């Protein structure tokens, strides 16, 4: 129900200002961006899509912060990981 999917804004709509098109892995859907009217959205921005509306603009910086946090935690395991990944290739 609260399913939200990150998508990249690729186009703004002709029909009315709130319409835009997002791309999710090559899949496109029209979304309403009216809830993000304050965000100065531009093509290339990523948004979270929920029931046909863009609910939130995704911050790349904050996204990276989580990954950095994990990176910091995980360093000792990296070598082991690489080894594991290698063995998974058929």
């Amino acid at each position, binding site marked *: 129900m609260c399913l939200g999917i990150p998508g990249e804004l690729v186009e703004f709509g002709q029909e009315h200002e709130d319409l835009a098109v997002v791309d999710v892995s090559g899949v496109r*859907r029209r979304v309403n961006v009216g809830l993000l009217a304050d965000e100065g959205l531009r093509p290339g921005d990523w948004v979270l899509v929920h029931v046909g509306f863009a609910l939130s603009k995704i911050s790349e910086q904050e996204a990276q912060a989580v990954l950095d946090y994990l990176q910091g935690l995980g360093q000792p395991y990296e070598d082991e990981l690489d080894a594991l990944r290698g063995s998974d290739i058929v």
Partner: protein
Amino acid sequence: MTREQQVLDRIERMRRRKPVVREERITLAHGAGGKATQTLIEAVFLEAFRNPMLAPLDDGALVRLGDGPVAFTTDSYVVSPLFFPGGDIGDLAVNGTVNDLAMCGARPVHLSAGFILEEGFPVADLRRITASMAAAAERAQVTIVTGDTKVVERGKADGCYVTTAGVGVVEQPVTLSASGARPGDAVIVSGPIGAHGAAIMLARDDFGIEAPITSDTAPLHGIVAELLKVLPRHVRTLRDATRGGVATVLNEVARASEVAVVLDEERIPVHPEVTGVCELLGLDPLYVACEGRFVAVVDGEHAGQALDTLRAHPLGAEAAIAGTVTADPPGLVLLRTAFGGTRVVDVLVGDPLPRIC
């Protein structure tokens, strides 16, 4: 045994009980290929028609006619829309029946075609459908030898329904059955999954989604013949992963063979656009239909050879070993997730995608 385990065992016993249709009326779920369909088939059709040839509920029946074993199968096609990227109801109806014969290890030979047309259906569309059936039949080297046409009043169909039946000859002795899987076997998927269901969903345009996805509909008798030529005695089970997808097919295998199937999420081939559609709509590609992909359960020791054979065929270029068969827990399909966890992959409940075939 923990209390949780006791509960789970009790549930498994429940699940093995004779299926009962509780609903008073048919719902779309009864046609979705999942649990409701299985229940309907077992509790109504199998119950009424009970006989040893029908009982395995395989893709087709192996019967003796005169001297030799013959495979016999049927499917009705009600796909909406009738025309979709990558195909139409016509080639779907030919390929689908060709594939069910191929899954029995037979060489498809002859098809019948029954048409139910809705009053008002454009004759030009019918010509387009029959042309594509003819082309598909030629591609699959089968002949449409007999047929029937009915017309129903406007509002009593959806343009055109096609029912094909097919007969094929079993030229080399193979024993293929959903009940043939054994621990140690490998589970092979013949190519990227879910493209047909995703293409239909987009073509229906209910969700305003666009993606360059085309149906995978294709005749599989050729690639199957290659596989059986190389490994006549080491292929246990062949199933085309149609309604209900790979998950449903493998549940049938796990249940019929009383084994567990353990899939490896990372090894299951899925095209990124199909993944994208599934994410957007909250679907799982394991349940999305293919019309040109099959699952083969192969003796583990010959899995590599099987994979090489499939990959040498144009329809199998992206084939993959997606999992293995184990003894426990019998009757279940498990998935090792890409995240490193494990979960059950159950039979589909409900109907995420109406009328994909």
